[in-house]
């Protein structure tokens, strides 16, 4: 954000505690000092209001970044995102563009329970007119965010809440690396089964893959990085090689990008499949508070391992 804001005065940042407090998760640390309170704007607790102001400002030429303190709070701004941001370009027959990024932490943290633990991607990927990104690594987060800010469409940018502590190499300013929206990455090569994932469960999947390697099963991991558009080509290439697939995600199992990916595979790689595709998902319940329950509601390493063994008929 800092790098992009230095390049373009039209970029303004708005949200709760983004300025003087330096960000609830410190993502916006230092921005107020550099850019001032006209560009780094603290808002009241009024998501529908400031999401709408961002959209209105985008319609007339600014390029706002709207931070939701967490994506759980975006539901009160759902009307603005779905009815206005996503549709204005088409409703106006291309007369109005809405270059805006909505970003914030997504998914469960630790024991924040029912109302603060949503993985929201199923809601937003449903909507034509929105792009949806869900990076897992620091490098992808940086490059994808740059792409999102430079895009002329509304982008839903989902930052895994548990991933803020992950450290990793990121390219220097001069490299100006842009990770294109809608391009998946092969995060680990393998021959026996494909794991398709994104966001926080990417790390669960990596750990499971290491354990499975010990058992002689080499998994290929596809990190989707973007969920709308879906890079099905990369997924299909991998599945045509491994002939087996497990989709791992945090959102609830009913519908959503996880189901969409499975639909794409069965349609375009049916003849390559040696086993039914399985999904490891967040369980179909509102998030409980107690640690022992929460741990098991989220997709666990053990469940990923078990699913991969199952598609490999190694149980």
């Amino acid at each position, binding site marked *: 954000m800092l790098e992009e804001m*230095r*390049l*373009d*005065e*039209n970029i*303004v940042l708005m949200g709760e505690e983004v300025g003087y407090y330096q960000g609830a998760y410190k993502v916006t640390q230092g921005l107020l000092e550099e850019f001032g309170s*006209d*560009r780094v704007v603290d*808002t*009241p607790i*009024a998501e*529908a*209001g*400031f*999401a*709408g*102001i*961002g*959209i*209105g*400002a*985008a*319609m*007339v*030429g*600014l*390029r706002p970044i709207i931070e939701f303190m967490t994506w759980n709070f975006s539901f*009160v701004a759902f*009307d*603005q995102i779905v*009815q*206005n941001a996503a549709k*204005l*370009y*088409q*409703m*106006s*027959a*291309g*007369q*109005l*563009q*809405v*270059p805006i990024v909505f970003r914030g932490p997504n998914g469960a943290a630790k024991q924040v329970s029912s109302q603060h633990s949503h993985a929201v991607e199923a809601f937003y990927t449903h909507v*034509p*007119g929105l*792009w949806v990104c869900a990076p897992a690594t620091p490098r992808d987060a940086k490059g994808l965010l740059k792409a999102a800010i*430079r*895009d*002329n*469409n509304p982008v839903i940018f989902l930052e895994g809440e548990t991933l803020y502590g992950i450290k990793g190499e990121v390219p220097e300013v001069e490299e100006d690396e842009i990770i294109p929206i809608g391009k998946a990455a092969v995060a680990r090569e393998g021959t026996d089964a494909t794991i398709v994932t994104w966001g926080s469960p990417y790390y669960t999947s990596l750990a499971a893959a290491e354990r499975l390697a010990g058992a002689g099963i080499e998994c290929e991991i596809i990190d989707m990085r973007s969920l709308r558009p879906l890079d099905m080509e990369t997924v299909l290439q991998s599945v045509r090689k491994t002939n087996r697939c497990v989709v791992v995600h945090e959102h609830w199992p009913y519908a959503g990008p996880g189901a969409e990916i499975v639909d794409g595979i069965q349609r375009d790689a049916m003849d390559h499949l040696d086993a039914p595709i399985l999904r490891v998902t967040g369980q179909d319940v509102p998030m409980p508070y107690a640690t022992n329950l929460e741990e098991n509601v989220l997709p666990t390493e053990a469940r990923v391992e078990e699913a991969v063994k199952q598609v490999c008929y190694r149980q």
Partner: protein
Amino acid sequence: MAAQKDTLLARYKDMFRIRRFEEEAARGYAKGKIGGFLHLYIGQESIAVGASATLKPDDYVFQTYRDHGTAIARGTSTRAAMAELYGKDPGISRGLGGSMHFFDPANGFYGGYGIIGGHVALAAGAAFKSKYKKEGTVSMCFFGEGATNIGGFHEGASLAGLWKLPMVLVCENNTYAMGTPFSRTSPVEDITKKAAGYGMASDRFDGHDVQEVEARIGAAVELARSGGGPTLIEILTYRFRGHSMSDPGKYRTSQEVEERKKRDPLKVTKTQLESLGCSEDEILALENQVEEEIADAVQFAEEAPPARHDVMERSVYAPSNYVYPPVGQP
């Protein structure tokens, strides 16, 4: 006196244009040429026309789904407006929006919104940009009294007040939210009382006189333009037609409607024109011009090519070829 007469004649023509446009739209709807919802503005024309007279071309205007009058007052051509109602390619939103979603930013009209309230925040966003860029422009948002109960209105108004945005919030209180009088939905009947909570100025008046509308809204526009922050205006008005074309209007008596029609803004303006020495012929000549324009608009819409699939498909996502402006330039 002569200048006042000419100005008022121009206002009358603008109001008459909207009235005749909508009467023909209703006819087109009855014939099945226009589908979906059709919400008519008939009876409220003095507000769109009076308000538009206070604005500059690059000011921003937002309206609810009852948007034909405001768009036309801003300068949308009646051809493009009628073609939109007919769902045709040369429509102002190329047949993708319909009656409720006119968009004409080239004429400073930023949309008709079917989901009321949220558009108040959008209008505040345009005002935010105006202030951030020191444009000197004003954002004007229209909404009905029914919209003042929803959260979107409250949050938009509240932020506009907090940030002293150059905005004018115009509540067109047309007495009924669909079929429900305001007294049954709001604990406070004087909407401008809410302005105190948003830290903004307010004004409240009857809307049948286009000259008064222009003067009173003009004051709010000047306040906003000069950095004085937003104003919440409530204009008492009345729609002569149903909420939409499918509304049988059983919630009010025909006597009430007839009584209100005595204060039809067109009639009121006509009387004013006569007292300024305007002849019947002068008015008739003007009306005839409008009749021709509207007949042409209808014919244009009838004959226009249909909306296009490729336009629909290509306008879901904007092309992403944005290049940053040089640093330090707007």
